[in-house]
């Protein structure tokens, strides 16, 4: 009996191995498909799919940018200055005495110092020629997160205007010429009196205002260092170098670019966002050509919607605020519109890093169309089971990204936003 089972098992197993390749009969004959879905594209104007756009500003601060902006009468308009607060001067230096022993010396004397500023030398951010940079001692404490052209501190219970608009009046520490062709840094030598003056604002911390004096320039300050030279008391024929690293940095600028009515703006520092309120009709009229293929009006349902894209047209940003690098565009649902401008947002509809748009799109070659996928968002508008979220926010994935911002044509103008829907209308699949 065991042999019988063995034989049966071997035969079955060997047979299973013999024909183990499984391929389903596949026909290239499309007529076997028992339904005829129709896929159509509908292009909706702004007035057909949305109610309004609203621009909100104030997201992030210039202090969060890695690059700080210096400008002087740029495009005849923009002035920007960089404010840096350095750490308190070191209280002691490690010095080797006459016996060769290293000791902490707190009775040293500052004999001078230098400010070293390093600038962005990338093509779009580099001045065309030599520029003059000036540094000055800040007259008062500033809050890097809230400082602006007019105000040094602007927190909830504390508002302190500058003595002079533009972080003034500042006592000059000196000027230096920087030629981008010769390097990326400029050095301002400080004498002992300047160092003493700089270190005198103990409560506020040593603060320096950088500005560019050459008109028509906008450039980026990447970093700045304060180095101090001191003569130790225990070894007076030696000069030691001490560092006071930057603790806080921001930039202030003037004028502040107010957004145009019905414009669409993203980016900038602080950043702008544009909220678009959708009102997509459930019944879509269709065009005569489309209505020959499907029954009109077309009822829009989540299942029928294959794809929804929002098409924007780039417009020139204000000349002084045109981005120097690509602007990345993101789109998210506004989860609690009643909390705007501080509403929580949904996940990105675009995905990292966003839709890139070259800087020229907001300048010389404005008028480019930008396509943003909003399928998930529009589908949710017609989902019976969930709460409908009609507001979509356009923004940059990182806020702030740069002082420059992107501008798009708003409603009521040629190139206004459009919504393109791709729908597939089909009967249900039935059994045989």
């Amino acid at each position, binding site marked *: 009996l065991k042999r019988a089972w063995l034989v049966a098992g071997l*035969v079955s197993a060997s047979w299973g191995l013999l024909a*183990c390749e499984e391929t389903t009969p596949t026909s290239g004959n499309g007529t076997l498909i028992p339904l005829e879905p129709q896929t159509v594209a509908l292009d909706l104007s702004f007035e057909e799919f949305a109610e309004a756009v609203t621009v909100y500003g104030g997201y992030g601060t210039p202090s969060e940018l890695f690059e700080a902006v210096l400008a002087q009468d740029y495009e005849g308009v923009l002035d920007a200055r960089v404010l840096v607060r350095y750490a308190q001067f070191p209280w002691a230096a490690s010095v080797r005495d006459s016996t060769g022993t290293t000791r902490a010396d707190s009775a040293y004397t500052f004999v001078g110092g230098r400010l070293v500023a390093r600038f962005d030398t990338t093509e779009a951010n580099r001045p065309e020629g030599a520029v003059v940079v000036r540094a000055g001692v800040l007259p008062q404490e500033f809050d890097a997160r809230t400082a602006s052209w007019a105000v040094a501190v602007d927190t909830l219970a504390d508002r302190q205007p500058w003595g002079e608009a533009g972080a003034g009046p500042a006592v000059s520490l000196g000027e230096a010429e920087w030629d981008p062709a010769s390097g990326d840094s400029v050095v301002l030598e400080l004498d002992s009196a300047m160092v003493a003056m700089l270190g005198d604002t103990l409560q506020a911390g040593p603060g320096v205002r950088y500005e560019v004096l050459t008109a028509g320039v906008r450039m980026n300050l990447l970093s700045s260092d304060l180095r101090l030279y001191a003569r130790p008391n225990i070894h007076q024929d030696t000069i030691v170098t001490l560092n006071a690293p930057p603790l806080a940095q921001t930039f202030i600028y003037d004028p502040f670019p107010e957004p145009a009515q019905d414009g669409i703006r993203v980016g900038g520092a602080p950043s702008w966002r544009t909220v678009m309120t959708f009102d997509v009709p459930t019944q879509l009229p269709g065009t005569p050509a489309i209505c020959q293929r499907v029954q009109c009006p077309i009822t829009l349902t989540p299942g029928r919607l294959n794809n929804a894209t929002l098409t924007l047209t780039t417009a020139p940003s204000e000349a002084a605020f045109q981005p120097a690098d690509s602007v990345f565009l993101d789109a998210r649902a506004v989860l609690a519109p009643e909390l705007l401008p501080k509403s929580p947002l949904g996940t990105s509809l675009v995905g990292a890093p966003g839709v890139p748009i070259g800087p020229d799109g907001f300048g010389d070659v404005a008028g480019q169309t930008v396509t943003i996928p909003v399928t998930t968002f529009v589908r949710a508008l017609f989902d019976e089971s969930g709460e409908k979220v009609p507001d979509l926010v356009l923004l940059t994935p990182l806020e702030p990204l740069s002082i420059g911002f992107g501008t798009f044509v708003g409603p009521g103008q040629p190139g206004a936003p459009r919504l393109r829907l791709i729908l597939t209308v089909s009967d249900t699949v039935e059994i045989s």
Partner: protein
Amino acid sequence: MNASRTLGAALAVTLLASTPASAQSLFASRGLGLPLFATDSRVLALGGIGVGLPGGELSLVDPSAPAGLNVPSVAFSVQSTWADADEGGAASDFSGTRFPFLSLGYPTSIGTVTVAIGSVLDQRWITSSSRQIDLDGAGGLGVVTDRFESDGGISAVRLGLARTLPGGVSVGAQVGRVIGDVSRIFDRSFDSLNVGTPVPDFTLGGRWSYRGWTAAVGASGMIGSVLMVGGSYTWSSELDALPDENTDGAEGSFGLPGELRVGATAVLSPQLSISGGVHTASWSAADDDLSVGGARDVFSWGGGVEWSGASVLGKPSAVRLGYRASELPFTLEDATDPTETAFTGGLGMDLLTGGDVVLARLDLTLERGLRAAGSFEERFWRFSTSVRVSGF
């Protein structure tokens, strides 16, 4: 105790072998699918009708056949198919393995009790095509690829009783359920719509489960010492197709055919016999229920010769040759009636015997067949293996 343990082992083997059937034919795309032969390899080799054959067999098509079993037995079949299809010049090929038949028989004092499951209809097929569409009616073109996949099938599970009446006539009856399920999925992918973003596929479809009742009766016996005749009739209720909760499609109900089989075997010598039979199925009962194509009553015939005097590897063996011709029930809009014909050859080996009882038997059958409907042809090789183990 020992008997029930071995019975359990046999059931385990049966269940283990009952993996889902794989695809057989592009003709499965028509109507309710491709009718299948839920028989063992010996029946296939002798024309596929399956009634009026001598020897106690486990069978879904002849309820009286198990009456001849005098020891507990389990039998199952494995079929592998390799096919080439030609759709008006478009060629394709496919292959697959399936388990069309499983059965267990246990002799009792009132007769042989059987449990059997067999394939009834295959519904596994795919069709796909790409084409250009005008999205907006203004020349905004895009390319889409449509794909429809049906994956499923229908089987019958029956409990039966067969016994030999005084006078030598064997009778049997089976009753059971028609079961199965199918998923039918349409998918449209958008290859190049030029919308600037990827467009997810448009997919819809659903899954239905099948429910119905079936019963069969049969009888067979010798007329004289030369001729054995037999017949069976299978009745089936309406087949209900019930959508699951995620399916938008409606439920369906389909008429299943009454099937009549009549066959006979002439025993020309102790080692040589010739058999033949006919089969009709009233599939037109489903004609009004189909939304695509139609259904018709079909007639099939087949026969074969068996010589059991051979010996292979020292084992008593039988050599078989046969032929069958069948009408297939489901038609498409082409209104061309599809047919299936096949030449068959087989070998049966008694691997182990104990006294007069065959304890293990192996049957092998090779078929070369053609399914055709107008310009649509499908040629196939099918190799079937049946194993019957007895005496546990």
